[in-house]
């Protein structure tokens, strides 16, 4: 087990190094940061000085080497645009993204799993069919459209919910949370639903397909023959056996929730990392972009690792084989 984790961490380092290198190669094409950092009366010579001071005249490999050298020491440089350390910015923004992602993952699970089980068990019922239609809509509508619809309906027309931001947050010193205030929760509802819709529909469809598969297997028939209740068959035998693929997908989806909350965050001006990243792209804020990509690489690797470990505890067969 320890060997397994060690190997995974080693792979993680490789992945992150590759991510950073690819990122740096791309930064050559995102534009010139200096044009956003100098006023229009700034002379060409002064702009050149600024480029030099920021190290933008060095080769890609030099810039990459310097970045890695600093990153290893936990130093990610300063944001060009906001002029504060990138690590401070990410620490400041990470709670917002994590809270949003977890709440929406929770919504997706709590709503998605029962819906999936129901649509598998009562395949032909009227309700199951409408669930499936809904999930089709959910999977095909783009996130920003759902967000804008919600804003228009609940924010502008009904004026029930705030249309942007995180509401009142409580600062715990090392973490800022919006989960302790009413306005924080109200602000959370729309972005969390927007972000959850796609995951939820994915879970519904996945669980349904897996359940249908499992329900056809011999041990379910045997369980029926043993005279077990339908409830015990569905939940402790069938559902449990569908969970391995579901956990893989959900794990990876939490990664993408964190990484790709970008669109939801920019529609709702949610002050998380995704918003930070997309604005950094617009303004060519290279230190933020590189640190963010590295962090996201790390999050994915970490989640993969956790999912792998979870397999061991859920699927006894794996434990025997190892």
């Amino acid at each position, binding site marked *: 087990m320890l060997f397994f984790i060690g190997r995974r961490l080693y792979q993680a380092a490789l992945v992150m190094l590759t991510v950073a290198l690819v990122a740096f190669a791309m930064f050559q094409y995102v534009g010139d940061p200096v*044009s956003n950092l100098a006023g229009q*009366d700034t*002379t060409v010579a002064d702009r050149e000085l600024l480029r030099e001071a920021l190290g933008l005249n060095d080769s890609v490999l030099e810039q990459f080497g310097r970045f890695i050298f600093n990153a290893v020491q936990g130093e990610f440089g300063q944001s060009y645009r*906001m*002029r504060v350390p990138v690590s401070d910015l990410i620490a400041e923004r990470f709670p917002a993204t994590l809270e949003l992602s977890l709440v929406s993952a929770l919504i997706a699970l709590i709503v998605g799993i029962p819906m999936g089980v129901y649509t598998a068990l009562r395949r032909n019922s009227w309700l199951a069919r409408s669930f499936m239609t809904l999930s089709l809509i959910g999977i095909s509508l783009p996130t920003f459209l759902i967000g804008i619809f919600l804003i228009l309906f609940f924010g502008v027309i009904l004026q029930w919910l705030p249309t942007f931001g995180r509401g009142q947050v409580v600062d715990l010193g090392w973490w800022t949370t919006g989960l302790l205030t009413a306005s924080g929760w109200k602000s959370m509802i729309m972005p969390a639903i927007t972000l959850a819709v796609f995951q939820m529909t994915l879970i519904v469809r996945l669980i349904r397909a897996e359940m249908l598969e499992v329900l056809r297997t011999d041990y379910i028939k045997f369980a029926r023959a043993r005279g077990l209740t339908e409830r015990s068959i569905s939940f402790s035998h069938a559902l449990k056996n569908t969970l391995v693929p579901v956990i893989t997908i959900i794990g990876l989806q939490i990664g993408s929730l964190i990484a790709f909350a970008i669109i939801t965050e920019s529609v709702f001006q949610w002050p998380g990392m995704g918003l930070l990243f997309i604005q950094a792209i*617009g303004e060519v804020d290279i230190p933020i972009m590189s640190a963010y990509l590295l962090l996201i690489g790390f999050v994915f690797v970490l989640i993969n690792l956790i999912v792998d470990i979870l397999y061991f505890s859920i699927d006894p067969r794996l434990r025997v084989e190892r």
Partner: protein
Amino acid sequence: MKLKSIIIAGMSVLALGGLALPAGAQTFKFAFQADAQSLDPHSLNETFTLGLLGNVYEGLISYDKDMNRVPTLAVGWEVLSPTKWRFDLRQGVKFQNGNDFTAEDVVFTWERMGSEGSDQKALAGLIENITIIDDYTIEIDTPIPNPTLLNDLVTMYIMDKEWAVANNATKSSSPADAGRDGSYATTNANGTGPFMVESRQPDVKTVLVRNENYWGNDSIATNVQRVEFTPVSQAATRVAALLSGQIDLVYPVPVQDWNRLGNADGVSALTGPEARTIFLGMDQARDELLYSSVKGANPFKDPRVRHAFAFAIDINAIRETIMRGAATPSGLMWAPQIQGYNAQANTPHPFNPDKARSLLADAGYPDGFTVTMDCPNDRYVNDEKICQAVAGMLAKVGVTIDLLAQPKSQYFAKVLAQGGYDTSFYLLGWTPGSMDVFNVFNNLIACRNEEGTVGGFNLGGYCNERIDELSRIIASETDVELRQAAIDEAAQILKDEAGYIPLFQQPLSWGVRDGVSVAQRADNVLDLRNVVMP
């Protein structure tokens, strides 16, 4: 409702032991598409950053709501000789930390603006020396006679010397040294202005509170006690925030949303003219265009081709369809709000496609040619749409435009000096920071010099020696009539040669909650001194 909010406010005062705002305190919330980059008033010469900081810091002179110059930290001035000015400073002014404002702070500020890392070195360079006569009198020497010194001084925001020394912030912070020693002023502010920074989270929220000890509290209109500024980057989100009543003022509002604001209850669009001129430029420097079907020659070196382009573009059609009627067609490279404007010279080329075709034929391009046009797509109001319309109009006279519309970061990286002026035909907008015409000549129209100090934004390399001579006169002529004559002559030459093709001044576009009174300044600055809440 009103009573209830007063009671609640009163209760919170009790609850917080009198720390909260006085009863009836007015909170003004506004959103802009981006955040100020820094609280350091000398680290970035950019409209929004300086506009926001203008509520915290002050210059010797400032603009009122109609862009007239008004004495601020200076109470009066006198021209002693063409290169020597005396300023009397306002007495009894205190910085927000309680320190006194004196002549020493002015000298310190000037030195700080010239320090490495400052983005206002060009401004600092307009002053040769500042002599302290006494605590409240200074004399400013300029290297050459400077008729626009008063305008230039508006963005020279005075910083407290003692505060800067105590916090190791005597040099302007730059993006390269942000977060290190000396960047205290990036995240903290201490000016003489009517508002103080209470808290700031970059790109998330900045809260300002009223400075109760402000020297001019009796002379400013505002009744606002607290200001919450939120950057909201998505236009749709910004407009929704206004419509849902969470925000009192948002800008910019997309032109296509004006009707929506007009039809909604309780909000309206403010669409005054901005001092920003949108124009087209052409590469007239190279012997062969970088991006064109014409090889071995540069068609833009021929004035007939440039005139043909100007005749082919129907500015009024662009104004009506793309700008919803809210742009001001322009024949000059500067707007009516700019010092040096002359209404008689402002007639654009009339729309005349036949003439354009015959001019192209005369120049040897009866079948037109192909040229690539560079265009930003997130910098000016509907910039990409304007370029598309221009391409369509030029197609009708036989010129094929390959449109390359890009986000501003890529666009500027390509077309500006650092990209080697890598363009053949482009769209750009310009507001002179000093609100004076010399800035336009110096940056856009005068011939580019080797050092890049003149003509830095003359991307097409237009060059006329007579205009250069006139530009030097405009720089230093203090006699208003002689100066205007030089401006008019230069404007005429530029138009005769069609060195540039001015299109129009773009509109300002703010969305405001009804009952909130604001002044929409032509430089797109929201001055909180003019905000009055219901």
